[in-house]
Each structure stands twice: as C-alpha cells, then as structure tokens.
C-alpha cells in the first residue's frame, strides 16, 4: 500500500475517524469514571459521535444546505441529503431527555447519599445490604431452631409453654 493511498484513506474518511475517536473517548469515560456526572458527560459524547456520523453521512462534497430555492438554475443545485439531519434532530431530542433525566437522578442520588461517586454510593449500599443479609441469616437460623424445637416438643410433651417462652427470650437477646 502506497503512502498516497494510506493518506487518501485517512483523509478521505476523516469524518469516520472523528466519529470513532469521539465515540471511544465517550465510551471510555462512561466505563472508567466513578463520578456519575462524568459518566453522563461520557454518555453525551458517545451519543454526539453518532450524531456526527449521521450528519456527515448526508453531506455530499460541494453541496449546499438543503433549502428550497427559487429562481433560475435552482433545479441544478447540489444539496446535502436532508433526511439524516432530520433523523438526528429526533435523536438529539432523545439525547437531551436522557441527559436531563440522568442529571435529575444524579441530583436525587446526591440528596439521598451525600455523594455522586459511584464507589461511595455502592459502598453505602453494600453496608446496608450486608447488615440486612446478616440479619436475614440470623433470622433464618432462629426460625429453623424454633421449628426444630417445636417439632421435638410435639414428640415430647404438650404442657411446657413457659419454657418455650423463656427460650424465645434468650434467642431474641
């Protein structure tokens, strides 16, 4: 492959290079950053890359804006394909809504946890979760113990309810 053809590939397809680089920067930001706002910024970059992809797709070199013109020679005007632009207008609206919703969630996460670092939030969650799991395990053990005791008791004797109450108090404390 000659140098010229490489250069041609690179510069001839430069819009795709822009799209790929922008997209990867955005994607990497989403994955690597803990800060939820930075994640949203990354997501925005990621989406913007796709917008650029669509918009550059509709461009024909040497073409003008796709506006209807009147007068002489207006039929011969070369204009860019307007449909991708219109499509991407819709996608931009979707992107704006996503960003607004994401930021609203971040604001509420900040109010609920006092942090917008994913690690801190997850840590707070894990702490409560661990407590809950421990509590659950304890309660399961207690319930099983009680059940065993009850079945043993049924074999044994029926008139010893005071003891059971005592046992319960012990297990609870």
């Amino acid at each position, binding site marked *: 492959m000659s140098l010229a053809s490489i250069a041609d590939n690179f510069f001839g397809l430069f819009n795709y290079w822009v799209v790929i680089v922008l997209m990867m920067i955005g994607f990497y930001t989403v994955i690597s950053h803990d800060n939820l706002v930075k994640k949203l910024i990354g997501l925005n970059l990621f989406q913007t890359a796709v917008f650029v992809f669509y918009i550059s797709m509709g461009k024909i070199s040497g073409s003008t*804006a796709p*506006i209807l013109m009147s007068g002489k020679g207006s039929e011969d005007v070369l204009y860019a394909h307007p449909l991708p632009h219109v499509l991407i207008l819709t996608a931009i609206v979707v992107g704006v809504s996503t960003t*607004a919703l994401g930021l*609203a969630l971040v*604001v509420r996460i900040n*109010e609920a946890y006092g942090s917008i670092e994913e690690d801190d939030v997850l840590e707070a969650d894990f702490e409560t979760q661990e407590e809950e799991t421990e509590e659950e395990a304890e309660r399961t053990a207690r319930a099983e113990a009680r059940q065993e005791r009850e079945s043993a008791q049924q074999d044994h004797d029926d008139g010893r309810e005071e003891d059971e109450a005592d046992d319960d108090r012990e297990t609870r404390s």
Partner: protein
Amino acid sequence: MREHTVLRVVTKVLIAPIILFALYVQFHGDYSPGGGFQAGVVFAAAIILYALIFGLAEARRAVSPNLLRITGALGALIFAGTGVYSLLRGGNFLDYDYLAHDAVHGQHYGLLLVEFGVGLTVVSVITSIFYVFAGRGRRNDDEQPPGDAR
C-alpha cells in the same frame, strides 16, 4: 445579578427580540429553516435568561411552573389532536391533506398546528427542567439567582 446595571439593561433590551425571533422561527418553519424544536428552545432561552438575571422567584412569578405543566400537556395534545382530527375527517393519522378543502392548504395548516404543538411543549419542558434543577435544594434562598452559584 440584579445589582449589575449593565446586565439588567442589556437583558431587558434583548429578551423581546429573542422572543420575537423565536416566534419568527416558529411560524416560518414551514417555508424556511426552523420549526417547533428550534423555536421552543430559543423561547425557553429568553425565559432562562430572565431567570438568570432577575432571579428564579421573579421568573416563576412571570411564568409559573403550573402554567408550564398545562401548556406542556396542551402542546402534546395539539400535536396528537391534529392527527386525530385528520383521522376523523377520513384520512390517516396526521394526514394533513384532509385538514382543509384542498391538500395544499391542508398541508400548510397541519404543519403550522403540529409545529405549534411541538413548540409549546418544548418551551414548557425546557423551562420546567431549568426550574426544577435551579430550584432544587435552595427553597429558602430564592434571593440568590441560580447563575450565581459561586
């Protein structure tokens, strides 16, 4: 920022042309570049500028959040309602041909109505988003305008 005379004066001068431009983009959207989305955002920018300079409370008094809720819903209803009207006239959903006595006028009316609905909703939604974010966590100190966070 109310104490900055220059900003206040410039804002007062600017807001009217911004709104006028928004209306131009809105109602010429069917013949020239523009339309509901763009006009809505420009219009909302005027309201947001007002809120930035004169404070959120003032802006809320001028354009109340409750009004925005209603106009936002109305805009969507105008859009869908246009479609339903063309449906009742015997066409398909959003078939503007059936809105008037002939197809050309019908297309014209349909485009105007639909874009108006879109514009109304976009103004309301963008401004509401701004109000909600700016008003969050500062319910008691409305004296400080939101742009002045530092």
